[in-house]
């Protein structure tokens, strides 16, 4: 399992997730800096992601869409606020329209990612925060496929265990 710990702060609306990968730091960084690799993990299997614009520099933007089973698309934009290759990246994550323009009044979360070499592998620490309680509530009302997806993923893992 890659996820080492998840700390949630329900009062301050933040999540800190720590994951450990058995891979060198440059390979983990590539998952963020290479748009073709990024789109392979961004969306769940049922909603594959396509990265359109990828400017991983401070002030740059990464825009992408996810395509659902019915061909429906949902767009997202990351506004990059800070980058220190290959150890950290910070951005705001927003729902966007088809031009990649963040939609006003839609929820925004702030993400900070930190990579460190550790025991021959790489530790990734991800800190996510909603800007306000209003954003958090609206994020729920938007609905996300990921919660359900996660449950299905866990079922797959259980089935694999039963088979072995």
């Amino acid at each position: 399992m890659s996820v080492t710990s998840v700390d949630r702060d329900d009062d301050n609306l933040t999540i800190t997730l720590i994951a450990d990968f058995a891979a060198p730091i440059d390979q983990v960084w590539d998952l963020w800096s290479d748009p073709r690799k990024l789109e392979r993990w961004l969306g769940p299997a049922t909603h594959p992601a396509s990265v359109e614009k990828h400017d991983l520099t401070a002030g740059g933007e990464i825009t992408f869409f996810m395509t659902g089973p019915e061909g429906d698309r949902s767009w997202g934009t990351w506004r990059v606020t800070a980058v220190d290759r290959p150890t950290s990246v910070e951005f705001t994550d927003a729902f966007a329209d088809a031009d990649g323009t963040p939609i006003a009044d839609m929820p925004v979360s702030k993400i900070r990612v930190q990579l460190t070499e550790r025991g021959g592998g790489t530790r990734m620490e991800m800190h996510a925060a909603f800007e306000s309680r209003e954003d958090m509530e609206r994020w729920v009302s938007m609905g996300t496929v990921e919660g359900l997806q996660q449950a299905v993923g866990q079922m797959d893992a259980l089935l694999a265990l039963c088979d072995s």
Partner: protein
Amino acid sequence: MVVGDLANEAIDDLFHALADPTRRDIIRRCAAGEPSVSRLAQDYPMSFAAVQKHVAVLERAGLVTKQRRGREQLVRTDAGAVGRARQALDELEATWRGRVDRMSDLLAPGTE
């Protein structure tokens, strides 16, 4: 995606209610038991009227319900309303757990 005015108002009430530490404490206490307003008032360094006002804000936001029993008013937390605020963090956590799992798959030897 249009959020109606009514929904927005309800959301504003909810977050206004949750923004105060005394009110959050009242929510916790009334989830564990079902104290009366006067019982609650004994536990906070403020007047009965002030506590009553906090309870009224929580009630308007749908976070607690009040029930009259004899001369007392019992306060109970509505777990569903509190759960909605938590749900957003569940979703955010699930999103990133899913992403990390896929990153891990991509990094596994023999995946290229």
